[in-house]
């Protein structure tokens, strides 16, 4: 075979895509801080049985309301670095075990809503027409339901537990997944490489899985982090209202709720779980923003 017209050669050897990606990741402070904090919290949650100094459920009533070590009252002790609550339970242990609940709820609710929202959004964006109309109707219906109100109704009907909270949140917060995935799919499906895949004889499912999904995955990751943070905050809010995780489970939202009567006397009871919640949500959001920046167009 004869060789075709010669190509204009590239100026310099370019760095490989993996090297470029690595450079972008390590140049992004938010992404690094976010993932460091998140990894620390995840490790704490996983290692809770080994690193928690006390049993989080163990009530010692003659040691109640010990302040944390940095306060100057004579009662502070290193036996309880973050003090104890009004039942004399070790606050640090409860905080460490509480990380598990927040992460489990955030992750599971994000997974459930992610599956529902992505399937609905991708179907709507890919097929358009009537499928899109149905999906839009479902999204509008969902958006018109206030999450807290529905949660109250469900909890009063079936009672409240960790599983119920996960399912209620998972079944309620898929709207953002659906909206974002729908518009991202619509954008990608009109590009020529989808038509090229069709002309190659690819089936519809093959086109969705190997042409469209890889190109909307970065949107998916960003929405997933936002929704995970959203679910964690909603869990805290529901637990605060008494509709979420039930005592004596050490949920951060519940810890804030239980301490609200002592807010003006022992403010640290609210400040400590509040700070933990803030750090977790901030780290997840930083991670999501970082992923968005790193995978933005212009990259590979």
């Amino acid at each position: 075979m004869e060789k075709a017209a010669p190509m204009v050669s590239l100026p310099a050897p370019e760095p490989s895509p993996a090297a470029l990606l690595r450079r972008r990741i390590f140049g992004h402070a938010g992404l690094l801080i976010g993932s460091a904090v998140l990894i620390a919290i995840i490790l704490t949650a996983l290692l809770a049985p080994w690193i928690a100094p006390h049993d989080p459920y163990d009530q010692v009533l003659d040691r109640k309301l010990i302040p944390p070590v940095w306060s100057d009252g004579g009662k502070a002790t290193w036996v309880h670095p973050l003090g104890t609550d009004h039942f004399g339970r070790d606050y640090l242990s409860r905080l460490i075990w509480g990380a598990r609940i927040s992460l489990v709820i955030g992750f599971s609710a994000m997974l459930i809503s992610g599956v529902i929202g992505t399937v609905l959004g991708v179907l709507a964006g890919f097929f358009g027409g009537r499928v899109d109309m149905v999906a839009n109707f479902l999204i509008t219906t969902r958006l018109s339901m206030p999450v807290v109100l529905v949660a109250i109704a469900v909890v009063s009907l079936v009672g409240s537990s960790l599983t119920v909270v996960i399912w209620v949140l998972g079944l309620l917060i898929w709207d953002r997944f659906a909206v974002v995935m729908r518009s991202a799919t619509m954008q990608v499906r009109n590009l020529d490489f989808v038509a090229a895949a069709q002309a190659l004889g690819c089936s519809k499912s093959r086109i969705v899985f190997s042409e469209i999904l890889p190109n909307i995955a970065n949107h998916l990751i960003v929405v997933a982090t936002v929704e995970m943070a959203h679910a964690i905050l909603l869990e805290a809010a529901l637990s605060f209202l008494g509709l979420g995780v039930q005592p004596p489970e050490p949920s951060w939202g519940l810890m804030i709720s239980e301490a609200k009567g002592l807010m003006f006397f022992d403010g640290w009871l609210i400040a400590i779980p509040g700070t933990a919640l803030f750090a977790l949500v901030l780290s997840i959001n930083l991670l999501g923003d970082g992923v968005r920046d790193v995978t933005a167009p212009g990259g590979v």
Partner: protein
Amino acid sequence: MSGAALIEAREVSCTFTVSGGFMKEKRRLQAVSRVSLRIEPGEVMALVGESGCGKTTLAKMMMGLIAPSEGTIEIGGRPLASLPRMEIARSVQPIFQDPYSSLNPRRSVGSIVTQPLRVQKDPDPETWRRRAEEMMEFVGLPQRLFNHYPGQLSGGQRQRVAIARALVNRPRMVICDEPTSALDVSVQSQILNLMQDLRSELGLTYLLISHNLAAVEHMASRVAVMYLGRIVEEAKTGRLFDSPCHPYSEALLGSVLTPDPTLGIPDTQLGTSYPNPLDVPPGCSFHPRCAKAMPGCSVRAPRRVPAPGGGAVACHLHDEGAALDTVS
């Protein structure tokens, strides 16, 4: 004409419904209306016309991406609608206009070029890489680009990747939808020459859709001129460029800019307004812009008649049999 056509469209139409807005009646847009086109093995058929005249829709119907609302398309004498998807893909492949959107940015060049083999479940997976590399070399892509991503390539290189993907399964027919119009002028001729070489070496048949009349004259053996979803003239390239019969073909050829600045910008006498395809003029759809329009043109649609000098034309000027006077 003798022998089986490679691909033949018989009276195909394609109608889209366009929503007129909330609570308004849906409107019908006739993108292609009753077009017949026959492409013989080994020829280069060019399809020219203004944007929006239905060229791309016709091409998509020929690849089986859109089903015609009426009429049939046959590949090698067998109706397209009855052929399995994979078999159509093996005989007809597209090259798209914009190589920036026709390559999946998340796939490497190697993955893109071997994709047709994978999709077709080609029986020898161990030869895929070698065959893809052969095809890359054949279209002038260095093999070191095998693991690169489209984002790292230039426009010309991307278009070569698209051509390699289209050809790796050795189709008989390639539909090129404005294959050079998104490329730099300096690269356009490289791609056109590459297409010429590939055609003679692999025995391909092209349907070339183009705005670039110089490219059409250079490449095509026959030309079909489309206007508002209809083919108004079809002839051998030489005849069409020397003596166009349809006033629209004449205007189209007259619109080509010349390198000589003293000649100025050509006057096509077409006016500026392209008619609304939702509201096609009655009679001959070209009559509002036609310099040679006669009274009867707004009443009766012209028939397709043999053109003087070969080919066919749909214009009352050349239809001796139609007694226009009696109508007007």
